[in-house]
C-alpha cells in the first residue's frame, strides 16, 4: 500500500497520542462512566486502521499481536477461575474488601440532616474484578481488531489467508 501525503502523515502523528489516551481512558473508567473493554478497544483499533491507511505497509509483525490477544483472553478467564476457588465462577472476590487494588467502596455522597453533600471519593479504585476484566478485554480487542484490519488491508497485495 502506498503512503499518503505529508499533511496526512503529520496530522496522524500528532493525533496518535490523543486518540490513544482517549481510548485508554474509556477502557479504564469502564465501571463508572459509559464505556468499557470493547468500546475503548474499538477506538484504539480505529487508530491502528488510521495508521495503516496513512503510512502504508508491506509487512508487519503478526506474532506480537497474536501473543497480546491470547494473554488478554487468558487473564480474563483466569480471573474468573480464581473466583471459582473463592466462591463461584466469576465471583467478585476483590470488591468491597477495602484493598488498594480496586477494592474500595464507592462513595457518592452523604446525607447530613436532610442536606445532600455530594462527593466522588475513590471512584476509580473500586468495583473489584470488573476493571481488571475490562482491561483484559481491552487488550484483547486492541490486538484482535488490529489483526483483522491489517490482514484485510494487506490482503490484496500479499495474498495471505483472510481467515481469523
Amino acid at each position, binding site marked *: 500500500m502506498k503512503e499518503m501525503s505529508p499533511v496526512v502523515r503529520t496530522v496522524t502523528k500528532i493525533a496518535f497520542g490523543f486518540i490513544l489516551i482517549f481510548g485508554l481512558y474509556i477502557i479504564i473508567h469502564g465501571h*463508572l*462512566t*459509559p464505556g*468499557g473493554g*470493547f468500546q475503548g478497544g*474499538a477506538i484504539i483499533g480505529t487508530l491502528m486502521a488510521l495508521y495503516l491507511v496513512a503510512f502504508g505497509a508491506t509487512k508487519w509483525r503478526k506474532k506480537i499481536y497474536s501473543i497480546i490477544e491470547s494473554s488478554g483472553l487468558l487473564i480474563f478467564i483466569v480471573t474468573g477461575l480464581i473466583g471459582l476457588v473463592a466462591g463461584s465462577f466469576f465471583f467478585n472476590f476483590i470488591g468491597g474488601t477495602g484493598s488498594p487494588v480496586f477494592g474500595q467502596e*464507592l462513595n*457518592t*455522597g452523604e*446525607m447530613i440532616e436532610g442536606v*445532600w453533600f*455530594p*462527593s*466522588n471519593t475513590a*471512584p476509580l479504585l473500586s468495583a473489584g474484578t470488573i476493571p481488571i476484566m475490562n482491561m483484559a478485554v481491552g487488550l484483547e480487542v486492541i490486538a484482535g481488531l488490529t489483526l*483483522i484490519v491489517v490482514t*484485510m488491508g494487506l*490482503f*490484496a497485495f500479499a*495474498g495471505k*489467508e*483472510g*481467515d*481469523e
Partner: protein
Amino acid sequence: MMSEIPYIAVVALIGIGLYIVMFKRNLIKLAMGITLIETGANLFLITLAYRSGDRLSAPVMTSQIMGGGAPAYSLPTPHALTLTSIVIGVATTALLLAFFMQLYKKFKVSSVDEMRRLRG
C-alpha cells in the same frame, strides 16, 4: 404516540434489511442488509430500557444521579444485552467480509448469481 416511534423504526429497519437480503444480488449489499437487520434488533433491545419520569439518565454511578433520594436511571440490563449483541455483530460481519474477499480473489465473484457451485 411519541414513545412508539422507535418501535416503528425497528420494524422499518428489519423490513428493509430482509428485503435487501432476499432480493439483491451483489455480495456487499448482502453484508449491508445483514448489518441493517442487526441494527434494527439492537435498537429494539435498547428501546426496552425506557422508563418515563423526570431527571432520568443513563445508568452511571456518579453523585449527580445517586444523590438526594432514590437513584433514578433507566434499566441497565438492556444496555448490557445491546453491547453483547453489537460485539457479536462485529465478529460476524468481519468473518463474512473475509469470506467474500477470499471468494473474489479465487473466483472473481461479486454477485450471488456466480456463487452457485454448490447446488442440488
